[in-house]
Every structure is written in C-alpha cells, then in structure tokens.
C-alpha cells in the first residue's frame, strides 16, 4: 500500500494550486456576485492547457490520469465553485463525446480549439420534467435525408449562454426510454437552436445556467455522436468519472470552508477567550477534520481504481455521495462557527453555504446514489474488502 501522490502528481498539485490561488481565488466573490461568465479568466486558464487535462498529448492535451484530474477539480473548487463548474464542463462532459465520436473535421473545428479555451463546449441532458431519470427525455431527434431534426427544450444548461457547441441528449424512439437516447452535436448559429431564459440561482454563480430551445433544428447526419440509441451506454462510460470529479469538487469546497472556519475560531473571542477553545467548537472542528479526511480517501481511492482500470460504479457513487454530503456538513458547521457573520455578504461563509447545494444534484442526487450503492451491495452477502 502507498497513500502518497507520485512526484509528478505532487508537482502538478503545487502548480495547479498556485495558478488557481493566483488567478481565480481573489475573484471568487466577484464571480459569485456578478453571475457573469469570467471570460478573461477562462482564456488565461485555457492558455495553461488545463482544459485538455484528460486528452492525449497528440491532440494538445495533458494526458493526465484520473488522480490528477481529481486534483484539478479539488483545487478549482477550493478557489471558486462557479468557475469550477465551467472548467469541469469544458474538460469532461462538454467535450468528451466529440473526442470519442467526432469526425476529424469536427475535432479540428471544435475540440482542438476548446482544449486551448478558444471554444466553449457544454452538454444538455436535463429537461423541465426530467433530471436524474434520463429515460424521461422528451427532446426528439427525427431522422431525415440530410440528418436529424431536433425538437425540445433543455434546462439547467451550464454555460448555455456562451457555449459554441452543445452535445444534446435526444431520443429517436421515446417508447424505448433509455434505449432510445442518442447524443447530437449542435453548433451555435444552427437555425432552430436558440438560448432561452436564464435560471437565477443561489449556487455556483458565474456558471450561468440556461434554457436551450431546439425548434425543428436541422443537423447533419455526422452530428450523431456514435450510434442511435446507444447514448445511455456512452454516458455510463463517463458517469463514474463525472461522479469522482464532483467528489473532488466537494472536497475542495469543504477544505476552503474549513480553513475559513478555523481562522474565525482562532480570532473570534467570547467570554474572554477564542471560541475555538470551547469544547463545542472543538467538537465541530474534530468532526469536520475526520469527515474531510474520509472523503479525501474515498475520492482518491475511486480515482486510483479508475487509473488501475478496476473502478466499479459503486465506488464512484460512494465517493460522490460521501464527499458532497461532507461538503454540505462542513459549510453548515462553518456558518455556525461564524455566528451571524455566517450570513453576512462580507465573509465567504455564506457563499460556501450556498455553493454546497450545487454538488448534491449533478451526477445523481444522494437519494439515487444510495439506491445504487445498496443495490450493488445487496448482490453479495459479504462485506467486500477493497
């Protein structure tokens, strides 16, 4: 057994941490307040090559492993959840289908520039009446001579207002539910594709979430990513990676909130001594410390399994569930340590408290994850030691 990072991973963490603390962290508050896509920051980070972290060096990527990608997610969330949502979308969900299934021309036009930050990609699953239950997707893709015609509405689409291309989940056969879903590449400017209302929200501000409208939107035949009806399988191929990434986000948020709580507990005095010296505050600090460590182990263990090629869906679900719940626990306790100042806009504690919620839903709600974990666990009547 060896729980330490490799030299390369350690070096990567130092480098990422330094860049993000310099470029992103000082602006976290203004990203949250303005809720506007931070384009300069996006471009600057793009020039450092991070958006290609998962992709091979031959196409301009970093060829990094899942542990390094998790480090990136964690460090991003430590700096700003809003910006982290933007970057992780660009690194993973927004570009992965085109990387796996795009034509050479599509890759040249969209993926290669996206890796450097020149184009923005996003993915569109969620609809007004379907979230975790993808089988309920109603957006239709109807085949015709020139390709497919897409019709439907998508909600909660990260970067929907600024994206240059969108990977859209649509069904070619609603009767088949999950078996009818395919992914289609739609570029900005395609007739019939438009951006609808913005969803004003309390968390992950800066990553604007939009409604996207497809009104008889004609796309070419090669816009279909892979094959018809295989969308669910393709999504499952990266679902665990998405969950590990979100677990990394939870870890980063928990750590930055924890540090702000520690600082306050040391500085603030009541009854003549720092509040951190009272047992009830010590208890909170101990609980947070233990849970963050446990979340860290679960998250990096899952990432390590992924790198070993032996990851199961359950391990990723365990990491996502525990890490995001830990983040929500920590931001709650940190707001209590701050007392009423936990609500004041001048301290980041209120932002952490709001941002925690963002992590609970994407990649599967905790309720759904629990059923996944339980169903998998119930298959065997033994406790499996990993």
């Amino acid at each position, binding site marked *: 057994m060896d729980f330490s990072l490799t030299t390369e991973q350690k070096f990567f963490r130092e480098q990422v941490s330094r860049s993000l603390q310099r470029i992103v962290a000082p602006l976290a508050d203004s990203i949250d307040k303005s809720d506007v896509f931070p384009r300069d920051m996006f471009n600057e980070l793009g020039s450092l090559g991070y958006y290609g972290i998962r992709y091979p060096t031959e196409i301009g990527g970093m060829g990094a492993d899942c542990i390094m990608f998790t480090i990136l997610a964690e460090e991003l969330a430590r700096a700003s959840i809003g910006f982290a949502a933007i970057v992780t979308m660009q690194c993973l969900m927004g570009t992965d289908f085109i990387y796996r299934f795009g034509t050479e021309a599509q890759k040249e036009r969209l993926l290669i520039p996206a890796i450097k930050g020149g184009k923005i990609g996003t993915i569109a699953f969620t609809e007004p009446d379907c979230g975790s239950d993808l089988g309920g997707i109603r957006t239709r893709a109807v085949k015709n001579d020139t390709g497919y015609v897409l019709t439907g509405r998508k909600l909660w689409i990260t970067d929907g207002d600024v994206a240059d291309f969108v990977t859209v989940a649509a069904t070619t056969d609603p009767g088949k539910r999950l078996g009818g879903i395919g992914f289609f590449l739609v570029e900005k400017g395609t007739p019939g594709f438009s951006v609808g209302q913005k969803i004003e929200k309390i968390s992950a501000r800066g990553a604007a979430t939009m409604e996207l409208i497809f009104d008889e939107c004609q796309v070419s035949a090669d816009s279909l990513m892979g094959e018809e009806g295989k969308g669910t399988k393709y999504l499952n191929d990266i679902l665990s990676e998405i969950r590990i990434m979100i677990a990394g986000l939870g870890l980063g948020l928990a750590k930055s909130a924890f540090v702000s709580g520690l600082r306050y507990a040391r500085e603030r005095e009541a009854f003549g001594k720092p509040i951190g010296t009272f047992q009830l*505050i010590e208890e909170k600090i101990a609980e947070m410390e233990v849970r963050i460590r446990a979340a860290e182990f679960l998250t990096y263990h899952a990432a390590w399994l992924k790198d070993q090629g032996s990851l199961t869906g359950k391990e990723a679900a365990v990491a996502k569930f525990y890490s995001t719940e830990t983040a929500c626990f920590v931001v709650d306790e940190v707001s209590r340590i701050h007392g009423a100042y936990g609500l004041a806009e001048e301290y980041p504690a209120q932002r952490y408290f709001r941002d925690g919620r963002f992590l609970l839903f994407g990649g599967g709600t905790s309720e759904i994850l629990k059923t996944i974990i339980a169903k998998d666990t119930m298959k065997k009547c033994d406790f499996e030691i990993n």
Partner: protein
Amino acid sequence: MDFAFTEEQQFFKRIITDTVDRMVVPKAREIDEKDEFPWELWKDFTKLGYLGLRYPEEIGGMNADPVTAMIFYEQIARGSVGFAQSVIMNILMGTYFVYRFGSQAIKERCLYPAMRGEKVATMCFTEDQSGSDLSATRTTAVKDGNEWVINGTKMWITNGPVADFATVLATTDLSLGAKGLNFFLVEKGTPGFSPGQVLDKLGCRGTITGELVFDNVRIPEENLLGAELNKGIEYLGEILDEVRVMTGAMAMGIAQAAYDEGLEYARKRIAFGKPIGSYQLIRAKFADMATEMEASRLLIYSAAWKMKEKLPSRIEAAMAKMFATETCCKVVDEVTRIWGANAFANEYNPQRHFRDARFLLYGGGTHEILKDFMGRLLIGK
C-alpha cells in the same frame, strides 16, 4: 391534560392564517429580492392592530397570552420571515423596555405610535465583538449632570437603519461585565446618533439590518429604562424566554412553508414513471419532517403555556428554541433535496426558505451557547 387551543386561540389562528395568506405570502418573494423595508405592506398590515399584540387593551393592545402570541409569530414567519422580524421587533424586544419602564411622556411619544405602526422600534445588543456574550459589551453610558452620554457602535440591528427609537444596551462600568449593563432609550434625531452601514445578508432579507453609531449621544436621565441602575440583565431575563420561544415559533413558520412546498412537489414530480413521493426515501423524509415539526410545536406551545401560567420556563424555552430551529434547518434542507436542482432556482421558494432558516440559529443565543447554558442548569454547579 389538555393539548387543544382554546376557542379564542383557534379563532385567532384562523384569522391570522388567512390574513398572512392574503397580505404577506404574495409579497414574500419581492421582499426578499428587493431587501428594502416594505413600507407599503407595513402600513397596511399594522393598521390591523397586531403590533399591540402583547400589551393591555387599556393602552390599545390586544392583551394576547403567550400561546396566542406564538400562534401569531408562527404564522407571520410562514408568510415572510423578513417581514416577520420587523413586525416582531416592534411587538416585543423593541418596545418592551419602554412599556415596562418608560415615563408617561416617553410612552406617548414612542410606545403608542409604535403599537400603531407609526414609529419603528428596535433593540440593540450586539456589537462587532460581542454577540451571545453580552458581558463583552463595549458601548458605554456615563452620567454627566442629569444626562447620560452614550458612546459605542452596535451591529446586526434589526430595523436599525429605519428605527425611530432604539433601546440600547450599554455599560456604566466596563470592569463590571454583565453586572454593569443597562438599557437606554435613544430617539432618532438625537445629536450623535446615526445609522452606519447596512448589512447585505443571506437570509431574512427585507428586514433592514445594520450598524448604529452612538457618538457622544446625550439623553435625559429618564431615558434609563430600568427601576434600578445596573439591573439590565435581570430585566432582560423577563422577556428572554419569550424571545427564545418566539424564535422557535418563527422557525416552525418557515418549516411549514417549506414543508408545504415539498409536499406539492413530491406529489407532482415524476421520476422513473411515478411521482417521487411514491419512493421510500422520499416518504421517509416526510415522516421525519412531520414528526420533528410536531415535537417542536409541542415544545413551543407547552413552554408558552408555562409562561402563561407563570411557571418556570427557562430550560423549556431554550429547548423549544433549539429543537424547533434545528428542525427548521433540517426541513428546509430536506425540501431542497426533494426539489432537486429546482431548489436552488430563484424563481421558486425553497432556496429562500433554505437561506432564511439560518437566521434563526443565532438570535436568542447560538445553540452552542444554549447547550452549554442548559447543561449547566441541568447538571447544577
């Protein structure tokens, strides 16, 4: 034993529930978004006489008993906790010391108009470095001839920036700690008394919370609100239980509003072909929420009943405040989970309830402080 409300209390509950539904609920979102004192609603609502809820009929009050008062606090918070804070400040903390110790002239100038909504009242305890620990109060009151001179800065003052008069906690002797504290009446327009910065805050928006600055404020001798000098903490004890149970009642108001939203969503939102409310994990949430809300209400109303009967209620009040507020925080959390991502869209109410609940954790004593306090009473010295 009799757990039922009296006929009069039931009647009151029906009326106030209906009034809140009609006047406050439709305005809640706007109050939160604007974060400005809702003058128009204030004028319409205060005409109904509720600001005199606790005071005798002879001076224009409603003479409500503590149980009835809790019904009111719960309902108004169900409508909008931002508005509820402003209203309750006039009903309870902002006017109590003026009612109890003010001269006839002071009552006519401040209390009676405040009961009619013509003046806005506030109460100032908190300072930058003192919250639950009142003995750390740094605002001073120094006697100079037949005047008091007040110096200091207060923070987190509900209604502070719009208040017409303030009951201010200050010490006559910094070395005495909690034993040197007194309440003083300071009216708007007194030289040296001015509002400072307004706090931009996460929850309870619409109640304007801010700083009040006292810079050599000179007030007459009779503005000391107390029969004896340096007994401020003792006088505060007279309403401490009511303030705590009131906070618990407000928590139940928010919890009920959130619960109702959760219920509606669980019934109509479909996942995997059936309403999410048909899944066990969602059903369990409702079972837990309803049980804890029922337990909270029993704690609140039994503590209020003890206050009405003049029975000791210090521990019971702390229990009610802590349990009900924690229940509220849990309910708003669970409702955001039931709502999924829609819970954090500003166009729906769950995110507001989620933010508002946090405000109740601190007023009336943080739960860390309350646990320490209760434990000390329970264990004995």
